């Protein structure tokens, strides 16, 4: 390992011209331990020149490092500092013939500062530098190494240039040197992990305002990365602050980058060199100009890892956690009043009416429902947190961004509706007499399942309070985040649970009788509606596969009808069972085909019939503001019922249209029906993790106003008036 490191250092060695030789220090004390001149300090940074090895060997490469300890809230910078600040520079004064190499820059952090992005370091960082020690130095000598380090140390408020003179006395001895006990291991780790070339082939192409970078081979061919981000060595090539959209392929990856000003002004000047950072490691790449390499896409999108690189924010106070938990509980309660929960209400009502006069059963069902809700929240939230930790840009409701899941849910809703219509029964024979043949799902399992469905279908919409809680939760350590999600589930289930646990409330319901059957048959229709709605969403998500889903639905209905017949007339259903099995196979086949249908290309959908809209992009917002026009941004998704209701009411009224005209406002729609990392990032910027989100930008105001999630015409009109002033 050590040999390898030394060899790599030797390979990456480049003599810099800044060395100014001074006299060789003679020392009599052979083999003395290195005497460092010690750390030098300013108010904001402490720096020290420290050796990796206990001594230097004649004719070898010795590695020393500038160790920085940076005050919290302050940063120093990478070789490309990003949008502001400046890199650390070292000017050496070394004994004769000792030649310094370039800094081996460790992978930088991404430091967002409002609309800017910087690349740099915080807390403690080592900048290792290889020094070539000539063969002529004698064992027993001591090399006095001096360097003036120039740091730009910046906080969000100010930048302070700091110069520190550092020195180190390094003894010369024969033989392989052990690691220096103080910082040797840390430096060795930095040297070993510093990004270096790894045989990755890369190409860059600049066309249509997009810089496309493809990289294949080397370590990228071994395993697909979950996220990737490109740090260019040179400023101005990319827009540092923009999200980087990635695609995975069998051999590597593709990154689509927003061009920087330098690129648009001067064109691409190959090679485009920099560091490709992924969850699997970071490597130096150099891209020649050329068409995209094969095998660099086609296996789905990957994130840029911005969420992953966020350090665990241990600063979440208990107060903030309690506030988020309380808001989550409130949000969950309010969620019951949101339009998106409507399909599920039917199932709840059906279940409630059934067990109204059997308190024990009702209690059991209520608790089972709660368990279903909580378990599903746990699974979904856990998956969301895990995927985000892996650098995927996902938000709440991500399960409905997958056409396969939407297709499955649509078929499931259809089955539930058919059950409520009385086409077939579930668990017939498990129930005692007196419940009629059209029993609902059997007891606890059914209630649990209802809870599961409630969350999967309804939770993607965010309610007031809930949006804040989820936004906050995603920035917390995971146990706290999960607790917040569970509070949300508790809020969602609470009304139902309270009713089930309260015999007095239950006894107010009418006595069981034929009315229950009528009610159940009636309640089937919201479920048919839900199935239709999900099928519509699926149709918007996929290119041309709706027919497959309809076919699967038809076959499923036929299967269930046959199954129902065999239930009511046992003994003469052999043929029916065979036919049912056959139809079921066809239904499943079609369902699988439907689930695997290609997602539609992302075309902006006109989501509101009455307002002319353009697709949202950060640039479109800026462009409109530059013209001095207010901007109304609507982040929506087809599977978000609340969004659709707002669009159908407040956003498409004639008064709103008039107000838009009067304010000369621009209407931008960000469609999150399918996964879109840019939108996910924007939601997150406003502390949200889901839709709907409505923003009004007024010219001259850097930050937008956030409108309520249940929009009223008046609120929109008033906000537009304010913005136009």
């Amino acid at each position, binding site marked *: 390992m050590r040999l390898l490191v030394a060899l790599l250092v030797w390979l990456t060695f480049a003599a810099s011209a800044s060395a100014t030789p001074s006299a060789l220090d003679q020392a009599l004390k052979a083999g003395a331990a290195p005497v460092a001149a010690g750390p030098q300090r300013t108010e904001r940074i402490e720096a020290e020149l420290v050796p990796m090895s206990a001594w230097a060997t004649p004719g070898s490469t010795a590695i020393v490092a500038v160790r920085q300890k940076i005050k919290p809230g302050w940063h120093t910078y990478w070789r490309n500092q990003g949008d*502001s*600040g*400046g890199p650390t520079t070292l000017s050496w004064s070394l004994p004769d013939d000792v030649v310094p190499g370039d800094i081996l820059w460790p992978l930088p952090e991404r430091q967002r500062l409002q*609309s800017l992005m*910087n690349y740099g370091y915080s807390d403690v960082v080592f900048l290792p530098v290889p020094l070539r020690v000539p063969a002529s130095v004698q064992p027993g000598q001591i090399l006095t190494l001096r360097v003036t380090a120039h740091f*730009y140390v910046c906080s969000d*408020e*100010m*930048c302070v*240039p700091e110069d520190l003179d550092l020195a180190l006395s390094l003894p010369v001895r024969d033989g392989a040197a052990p690691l220096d006990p103080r910082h040797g291991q840390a430096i060795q780790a930095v040297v070993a992990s510093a990004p270096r070339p790894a045989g990755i082939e890369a190409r860059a192409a600049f066309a249509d305002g*997009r810089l*496309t970078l493809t990289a294949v081979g080397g370590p990228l061919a071994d395993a697909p990365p979950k996220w990737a981000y490109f740090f260019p060595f040179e400023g*101005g090539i990319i*827009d540092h602050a*923009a*999200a980087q*959209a*990635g*695609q995975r*392929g069998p051999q590597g990856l*593709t990154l*689509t*980058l927003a*061009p920087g*000003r*330098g690129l*648009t*002004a001067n064109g691409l000047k190959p090679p485009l060199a920099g560091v490709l950072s992924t969850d699997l490691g970071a490597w130096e790449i150099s891209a020649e100009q050329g068409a995209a390499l094969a095998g660099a*896409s*086609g*296996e*789905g*999108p990957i994130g840029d890892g911005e969420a992953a690189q966020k350090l665990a924010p241990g600063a979440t106070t208990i107060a903030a956690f309690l506030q988020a938990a309380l808001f989550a509980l409130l949000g969950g309660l309010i969620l019951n009043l949101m339009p998106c929960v409507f399909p599920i209400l039917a199932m709840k009502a059906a279940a409630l009416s059934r067990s109204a006069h059997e308190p024990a059963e009702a209690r059991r069902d209520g608790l089972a429902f709660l368990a279903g809700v909580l378990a599903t929240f746990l699974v*979904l939230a856990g998956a969301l947190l895990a*995927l985000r930790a892996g650098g995927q840009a996902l938000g709440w409701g991500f399960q409905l961004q*997958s056409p396969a899941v939407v297709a*499955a*849910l649509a078929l*499931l809703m259809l089955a539930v509706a058919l059950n409520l219509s009385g086409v077939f029964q579930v668990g017939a024979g*498990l129930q005692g007499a007196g419940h009629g043949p059209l029993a609902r799902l059997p007891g606890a*399992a*059914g209630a649990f*399942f209802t809870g*599961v*469905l409630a969350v999967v279908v309804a939770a993607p919409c965010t309610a007031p309070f809930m949006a804040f809680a989820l936004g906050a939760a995603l920035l917390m350590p995971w146990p706290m985040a999960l607790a917040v999600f569970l509070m949300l589930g508790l809020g969602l289930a609470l009304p139902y649970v309270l009713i089930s646990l309260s015999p007095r409330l239950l006894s107010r319901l009418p006595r069981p009788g034929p009315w229950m059957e009528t009610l159940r048959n009636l309640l089937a229709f919201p479920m048919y509606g839900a199935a239709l709605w999900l099928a519509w969403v699926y149709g918007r998500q996929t290119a041309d596969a709706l027919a497959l889903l309809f076919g699967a639905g038809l076959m499923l209905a036929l299967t269930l009808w046959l199954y129902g017949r065999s239930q009511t007339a046992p003994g003469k259903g052999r043929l029916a069972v065979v036919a049912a099995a056959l139809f079921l196979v066809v239904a499943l086949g079609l369902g699988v085909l439907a689930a695997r249908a*290609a*997602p539609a*290309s*992302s075309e902006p959908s006109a989501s509101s019939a009455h307002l002319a809209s353009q697709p949202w992009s*950060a*640039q*479109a917002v800026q*462009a409109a*503001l*530059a013209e001095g026009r207010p901007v109304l941004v609507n982040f929506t998704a087809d599977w978000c019922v609340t969004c659709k209701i707002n669009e159908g009411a407040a956003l498409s009224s004639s008064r709103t249209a008039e107000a838009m005209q009067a304010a000369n406002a621009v209407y931008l729609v960000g469609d999150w029906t399918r996964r879109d*990392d*840019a939108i996910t990032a924007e939601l997150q910027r406003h502390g949200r993790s889901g839709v709907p989100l409505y923003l009004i930008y007024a*010219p001259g*105001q*850097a930050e937008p106003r956030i409108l309520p999630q249940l929009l009223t015409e008046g609120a929109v009109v008033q906000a537009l008036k304010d913005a136009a002033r």
Partner: protein
Amino acid sequence: MIRMLTVASASLLLLAACQQQPATAPDKAVPVATETTAVAGPGDMAPAFTLVDAEGVQRSLADFKGKTVVLEWTNEGCPFVKKHYSGAMQALQREATADGVIWLTIISSAPGTQGFVEGEEAKAWKAKHRAAFTHLLLDPTGETGKRYDAKTTPDMRIIDPEGRLIYVGGIDDRPTNKVEDLEGANNFVRTALADAKAGRPVQTAFAQPYGCAIKYAETVAS
């Protein structure tokens, strides 16, 4: 049996929900919000603005139509600005204004942040720094700075008499705060003004700006 199937299908459903659906269309990249035309670059029309100057007078870009206009973003507390205000920036301002160029120095620092000035302090700014600009414009909301996508101090723009941007970006090619680096640096603003005066196309129309981040108004969490 049915009960087991029910539970199994529910769990399958959830598992499916956690699977990312692989995109089968290879060329379907997630769109990155990029519009090259969105932020004004070299060759684009300069965005209009109206700002109050240090004397309290409203100044619009439109007032200077027909003249070459230089925009300079500044913050007196920034070490990179201090380097140029050791005499070089003032000399350039004098040269340019003597040639009839309008030089507008803009402060986009928000109230309470480094570099923000108002009232008497703003009036005294020119004398204090022995500057030779035409006007010192105050942009406390940061609106104009953001409209021009100004990122750092210093960050420079040159607008030709027709209102087109002919230079965008950093002041020179030595991104340091050290005064000795002024010697031998290529000052892009000086060369672009010379190109424009001679009727040549501007050689370097963009250079990466360097300096301190502009202290724009903080994000207001609502």
